[in-house]
């Protein structure tokens, strides 16, 4: 039997802490440990920051829908918005080994999402953007 939790909010950066609280509660109820909860919270925080700043370009009245689901040994977060489509292939990966003078300030959010989650998929249609991120829950 799967578990499902949903949350929706407007597109303001002030909402990030509420989003994080929702994700933490859902992830804990689905049995993720502290480390996994942090991973998922951070991935969702980075993704929602991107939606607010890039998809909705800072406009506060956009809608963000977040669904957390557990099926078997997978915890899946789906984030939907109706802002500008986001093409992750256009974002250059950050230079994580470069000296400070060569460090750019972009690309880190997407880098963390891929590092922290096991599967990541971006999907765009006329109905909006959908990001699906999966965290595998190892047996204890």
């Amino acid at each position, binding site marked *: 039997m799967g578990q499902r939790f949903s949350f929706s909010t407007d597109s303001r950066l002030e909402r990030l802490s509420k989003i994080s609280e929702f994700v933490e509660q859902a992830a804990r109820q689905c049995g993720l440990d502290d480390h996994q909860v942090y991973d998922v919270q951070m991935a969702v*925080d980075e993704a929602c920051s991107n939606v607010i700043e890039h998809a909705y370009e800072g406009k506060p009245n956009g809608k963000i829908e977040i669904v957390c689901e557990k099926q078997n040994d997978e915890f899946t977060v789906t984030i939907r918005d109706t802002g500008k489509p986001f093409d992750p292939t256009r974002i250059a990966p950050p230079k994580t080994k470069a000296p400070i003078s060569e460090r750019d*300030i972009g690309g880190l959010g997407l880098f963390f999402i891929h590092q922290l989650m096991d599967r990541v998929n971006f999907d765009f249609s006329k109905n909006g953007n959908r990001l699906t991120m999966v965290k595998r829950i190892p047996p204890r």
Partner: protein
Amino acid sequence: MNPQIVLLCPQGRLDAWTARQLGTDLEKHLSHGQTRLIIDLRNTRYISSHGLRVLLETQKHAREIGGGLKLCGLNPRLFEIFEMAGFDRVFEIFETVEQAEQAFAL
């Protein structure tokens, strides 16, 4: 504390929203010629890429004007995030404020 060094202790989360305020505070110090900065992260439980960017921009700016930014008090999870992004190579990271302060004196 050496009066020429500024110590900041951000609380809780450094996300895209709260990092803006920290960035404004840090820039204010730099514009007033306070170029030696220590950020004590012992009460910071979360930092996103936005928080890291603010620290990176501050470090670059501080070094340009002859100062620098040193960090201390990171919990193990925060340190892991710094390592993941390679930020442990960009910053001098100390356990305590006293150690960070002494490093400025060297």
